[in-house]
């Protein structure tokens, strides 16, 4: 597929491929998404804002330039920002494709990193020379200030102009706990939220710390998604229960919502509200207890996002859809076109 190379969250010509529960494929304008919803449906979106998680700096032992991309945290607690897991690159930035980036210098536990106004210690390597656990110096407020003022949004070479924070800040963005934007939510704006009300469609949010989508290293990419903390408000759990009882559909906006809701699902489809850490991988054969449909980007086979779609519909249908996405010039990646996939009857 063609990469969407301009950072426009809602291009007027955005396309939407729909796979319904009978595995039928149709093509729509994404701006018509609301018309595909029914009274009683519930939209659940991830309201995590994107933190500027790319930090340029130096590995002090070798004095070599590095880029650190924050990639994971223990919890969503506001104070819990001293420790992160992170992926490290050598000198350079997003202009070079991740797989072509030079390796960082050899990094060991105890090494010090200078990242603009921030400084950090490498606590340990996470079974890979480029994935590490780091601890920032200072107070949580100092770390928030350092990240907010020094960091840049993580980005990839298919978008050549530097991303600004407002490029990745979705209209509904709340807590800045995502490392990359939960970009399926780019499709929503305040007009669509008002339209939902008019159509009798409910809206709820969760907060899920969306991780990074690519590391440039095949071995590391196979470990994605990393564990991701999430929080489900009581009001969202209640809205899901109400939707289930009344026969509406729970429509997840993005893979992170599916991961969180299914992780918090209890037998019978009820949702545990509160905080949790999603550790599971969803894919072919995964049972979906809560989510009836997903709005997502267009994903290439072999990625963890694509794998998750296999929980919704069968491989033959996804392959058919893949051919249509190619043939009709759908664009991919976070600023690209979308798919709406209803859980197949056969997967219920």
């Amino acid at each position, binding site marked *: 597929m063609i990469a969407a190379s301009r950072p426009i969250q809602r291009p007027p010509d955005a396309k939407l491929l729909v796979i319904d529960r009978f595995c039928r494929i149709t093509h729509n304008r994404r701006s018509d998404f609301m018309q595909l919803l029914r009274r009683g449906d519930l939209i659940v979106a991830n*309201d995590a*804002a994107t*933190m*500027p998680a790319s930090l340029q700096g130096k590995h002090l032992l070798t004095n070599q330039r590095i880029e650190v991309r924050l990639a994971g945290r223990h919890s*969503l*607690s*506001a104070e819990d*920002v001293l420790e992160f897991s992170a992926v490290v690159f050598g000198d350079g930035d997003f202009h070079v494709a991740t797989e072509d980036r030079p390796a960082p210098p050899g990094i060991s536990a105890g090494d010090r990193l200078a990242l603009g106004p921030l400084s950090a210690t490498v606590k340990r390597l996470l079974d890979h020379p480029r994935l590490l656990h780091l601890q920032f110096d200072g107070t*949580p*407020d100092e770390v*928030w*200030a350092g*990240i*907010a*003022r020094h960091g840049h949004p993580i980005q990839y070479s298919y978008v050549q102009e530097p991303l*600004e*924070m*407002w490029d990745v*800040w*979705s*209209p*509904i*963005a*709340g*807590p*800045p*706990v995502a490392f990359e934007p939960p970009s399926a939510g780019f499709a929503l704006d*305040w007009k669509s*939220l*008002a339209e939902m*009300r008019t159509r009798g469609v409910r809206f*709820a*949010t969760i*907060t899920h710390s969306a991780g990074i989508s690519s590391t440039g290293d095949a071995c590391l990419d196979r470990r994605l998604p990393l564990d991701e903390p999430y929080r489900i*408000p*009581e*009001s*969202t759990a209640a809205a899901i229960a109400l939707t289930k009882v009344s026969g509406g559909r729970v429509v997840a906006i993005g893979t992170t919502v599916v991961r969180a809701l299914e992780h918090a699902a209890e037998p019978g489809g009820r949702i545990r509200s509160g905080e949790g850490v999603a550790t599971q991988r969803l894919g072919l054969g995964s049972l979906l207890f809560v989510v009836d449909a997903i709005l997502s980007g267009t994903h290439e086979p072999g990625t963890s996002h694509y794998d998750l779609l296999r929980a919704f519909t069968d491989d033959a249908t996804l392959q058919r859809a893949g051919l249509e996405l190619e043939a009709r010039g759908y664009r991919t990646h976070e600023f690209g076109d979308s798919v709406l996939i209803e859980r197949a009857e056969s997967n219920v």
Partner: protein
Amino acid sequence: MTGSLDNTSRTRHGDDNRAGVHNSIAPETGPGSPDLTPLYGLRVAITGGTSGLGLALVREMTRRGAKVAFVARTPHAVEQTACSERAHGIVGDMSVKADIHPIAIQIVGELGGVDVLINNASDLGPAPLALLGDTDCEDLERAVATNLIGPFRLTKALLGALTASAREGRGAVVVNISSDAAMNPYPRWGAYGASKAALHHLTRIWGEELSEDGVEFLSLDPGDMDTPLHALAVPDADVTTLKQPAQAAIEIAYAIAAALERRGVFGPGRTGQKAGAR
């Protein structure tokens, strides 16, 4: 204009000392009002928090048990106020586009969400005050950037967090600090008055558009106060006739509590409990 001007709410020069004509804040509530405990646990963001009304608001909100993050331009003053008021201090300039998202990240990151936003940071325009014909375009632009566009940008960046609070039953309130100069065409208050008039109207439209999303928008005129900025605007004012910023802060706290009550967020137990549950 000097560097200290953004941190204080400006008020009009004062031969007319009545409360503002629009959403004037309840003058009958005095210090020690017993019913303000619902602010316990509220997550409150205040711009222009190191002097004048902003500082008084930081003090009043923390005194009422709110979790407060405030914004101001001068690092040293931010550090001092953060330390003395036990609040989260954020360095940033509301008139600078590139500062807004870093400010929003720190507000929501440090508080874990936001229930109340008070856009208080204001710019007087030319100092000393000047007739419009004598006002430099740059002075007008800076007043509009600080008093109108900055609050618009920050409110927009925080809308997701505010509406999430509303959905979760915590309530959500945006207070934009206005002035009677927004309503009346006082000569020499052109840059300030025009930018505040625009902010006032913006507030009303936000309120119409987001009412169903549960966000209350208040445009509040604190009246003429004894602040450094008032002194700058009206050097010869009789300060004994001016309101103390602390009194205005109490009235604003009351207006916020009343707005939360209108939205069904009642009483100390409920708000405190929900906040504590996080």
